[in-house]
Each structure stands twice: as structure tokens, then as C-alpha cells.
């Protein structure tokens, strides 16, 4: 290590870098790693709640970025979205593995409290401890939407599981996920427009 760095590569867009990674360019890969490893690791840690497991997940995910760069298509979204969806999928796989079942059960109980009506202050405290948020969007969602989105994205639960756990009809869970995510998309768009 320590032979950084090719400033010409640093000036390339993510998409161009990934095209080079697909030809086996390790230098281009390193730039992609430097750009996205932090957010990937943060997501992995939020999902798995364990540093060692998160480190392991990030290594796996980036090696699959390296080996699967030819499968990236700009038509399907940005490089960041692609990298994060690899991290997310693999995180879900781990959460759903039997070894993680017990911890998941606990998370399920805890998350169930997140976003309960505001008057339950002890639950707001749990919310703060369990799911510190940067207030970039999730907190703007109505609680019923924010809760199902959290359980799905960070908790790795299917909408069937969420429906069972919250005692809600499946259709209600699906439409809350949809409304919540659409609202997040709009607030992201607004943030981007302002920045």
C-alpha cells in the first residue's frame, strides 16, 4: 500500500472508474473504494450492530464490486446506489441467516417501539439510542411510515414479517413502505435541488 495516488483517476466520474475496474484496473478500484467505503461501512454497522461483522461485510461487498464491475449498468442507477445495494443485500443475507436469528428477534422487539406515538417519551429515548438519525429525511416521515421503512431497510425484515410483527394487514405495510419511500425520494430531491 502507500503508492497513492493517480490524480487523473481521481478526476474521473464514478461510472468511468467502474468501466475501468471492469478491465481489471486496481487503481481505479481503489478510488471507488475511497469514495464509498465510509457510507458502506456505516450502513453495514447500522444493519449488523457489530464492528467486526460490518468490516467483514464491507470487504465482501467491495470484492464483489471488483469482480462484478462488468455487471454494473448506469441505466440502473448511480455507482453509489449500486455499491450500497450490494452491501444492503449481503447485510440482509446475514441478518436472515439462522445464526443471527436471536439478535434479530431482539431488534424486532426494539424496533417495534421506534416511532410509537410521541407521548411515549421512554420510547422516544429508545428510538434515540437504537436508531440515531442525522435527520436527513427519516425523521420527517410520519411515524407509521418511518417505522416500517426502518424495519425493512435496516432490520432486513420482509414486508410479510413486518405485517406479522406489527399486526397490520400486508397491504397496509406495502403501502406504508411505498408512501414512506416516495416521500424520502421527494425530500432527497429537494435537498439536492437546494445544495
Amino acid at each position: 500500500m502507500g503508492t497513492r495516488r493517480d490524480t487523473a483517476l481521481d478526476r474521473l466520474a464514478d461510472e468511468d472508474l467502474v468501466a475501468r475496474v471492469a478491465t481489471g484496473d486496481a487503481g481505479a478500484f481503489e478510488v471507488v473504494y475511497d469514495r464509498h467505503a465510509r457510507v458502506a461501512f456505516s450502513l453495514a454497522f447500522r444493519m449488523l450492530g457489530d464492528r467486526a461483522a460490518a468490516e467483514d461485510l464491507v470487504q465482501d461487498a467491495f470484492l464483489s464490486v471488483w469482480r462484478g464491475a462488468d455487471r454494473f449498468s448506469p441505466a440502473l442507477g448511480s455507482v453509489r446506489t449500486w455499491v450500497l445495494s450490494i452491501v444492503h443485500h449481503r447485510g440482509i443475507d446475514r441478518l436472515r441467516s439462522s445464526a443471527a436469528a436471536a439478535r434479530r428477534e431482539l431488534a424486532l422487539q426494539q424496533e417495534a417501539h421506534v416511532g410509537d406515538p410521541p407521548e411515549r417519551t421512554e420510547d422516544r429515548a429508545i428510538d434515540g439510542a437504537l436508531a440515531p438519525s442525522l435527520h436527513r429525511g427519516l425523521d420527517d416521515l410520519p411515524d407509521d411510515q418511518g417505522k416500517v421503512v426502518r424495519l425493512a431497510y435496516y432490520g432486513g425484515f420482509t414486508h410479510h414479517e413486518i405485517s406479522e410483527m406489527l399486526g397490520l394487514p400486508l397491504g397496509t405495510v406495502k403501502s406504508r413502505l411505498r408512501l414512506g419511500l416516495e416521500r424520502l425520494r421527494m425530500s432527497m430531491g429537494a435537498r439536492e435541488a437546494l445544495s
Partner: protein
Amino acid sequence: MTGHDELRELLASVALGAATPEESDLVARHVAGCGDCRAELRGLRAAASGLALDVPQLEVPASVKASVMDVVRREAAAVAPPPVRAPGLRERLGALLPARAGLWPAVAAGLAAVVIGLAVWGGAFGGGGSVRTVPGVCTAAGVSCSAEVRGDDAVLRVTGLPALPAGRGYEVWLIRDGRDPVSAGFMAPGADGRLTAVAEGLDGVRALAVTPEALGNTSAPTSSPIVTVPLPAA
């Protein structure tokens, strides 16, 4: 068949990873043919990945990068991963050759002048002229290779070749500018993994290469070379 409206309701679940594998498959098949849903899913996926920014951002330990880059550099350096057909070979050899090597349209060159054979060779080319030893590129672990060149003749020396199963042998290829590799025959390494081949009449040959092949294949290499020795221009 599940229709557009029903699947549209599933897009957010898919983007959030909350759909079942069966549902995700249904959606994948639908969006392949529905531009509307494809665009919608793209936007929802981007929104979902924004949730990764909605958590405290943590520094990644440097050791993670070190071990990822370690694997990546190793794999990038291994010139010859799995199964590559002749074009791959050609590109790889091309990279090792001087720039003017260019592309190699197929040609059935007459190579009667080239004689190659297993040799117990004493190092005497006979006659005068200086002998140059040129190093080769070996992609298999433990293999080393070089050639001793004098004029249009060369002795290829390879050590550390693994034994091959019955029916397979090491095939030597002659690489010329603008041509497909041409077989110079099969060689059998000795019990110690050592192979020595004498090639004569190499005018215009830019490199020698070796691939493991099924005995009898003489048309084109079927894998990347484990040994490539570029020959200096005469």
C-alpha cells in the same frame, strides 16, 4: 400473470429489500419490459440508498482497505484468470509484445522451416554469434521460464511445470505479428517439471508461449499461456 398495477405496488418493497425472492423475481421480469416501472424502481432504489446516509457515518478501519486491496492487487496481477479462448490469449500476448504487434488475423502460415523438439541440449548452437538470455512471463505459481536466443534460433527453458493428466500436454505456440498463434508441437516436461525445447528458424516470431492442451489440439490455444517469452527483434 401478475399485472403492472399489482407489481407497481411492490416496487418500494423491492427497493427496500423487503420483498420475498419470488416477488423480486416477478418485478425483475416485469421491469425488463416496462420502462415506466423501470424508471420508478430506479428512483426508489436511489431513495433507499439515501437511507445509508441517514445513519451516523463511521470511519472504516485502514485494515479493511488493506486486506481488500491486497486481494484486488493479487487478482489484478494474475494475468490469467479462468477460461479464455484464443482472442483473450491474443490480447494478453499482444500486451507483452512491442506496440507494432497489433491485431492478428488468422493465417495458416507455412512453418516448415521451424523445427522444434525435445532436446537434451548442451548449449551449443554450433557456429558463432552471441547468445542472449531473455526472461519470460510465467503466470502459474512456481513456474519460471526464459529463452536463450541466437539469431533465428532459441532454446526455451521452463522449470516447475506441474504434471498433467493423461491425454494432456504442453503445447508451444509461435507468435508472429498480425497472425494467430501457430502450434509448434507438444512438449512433455521431465519428471522434475523441467521442459527444454529447441526452436529454429524463428524469423518473424515475436514470442514463444506455452499452454496446457488436450493432445492433438493444434488449431488454437484454448487457455491463457502459462509461459510467454518475448523474443528480441533480430
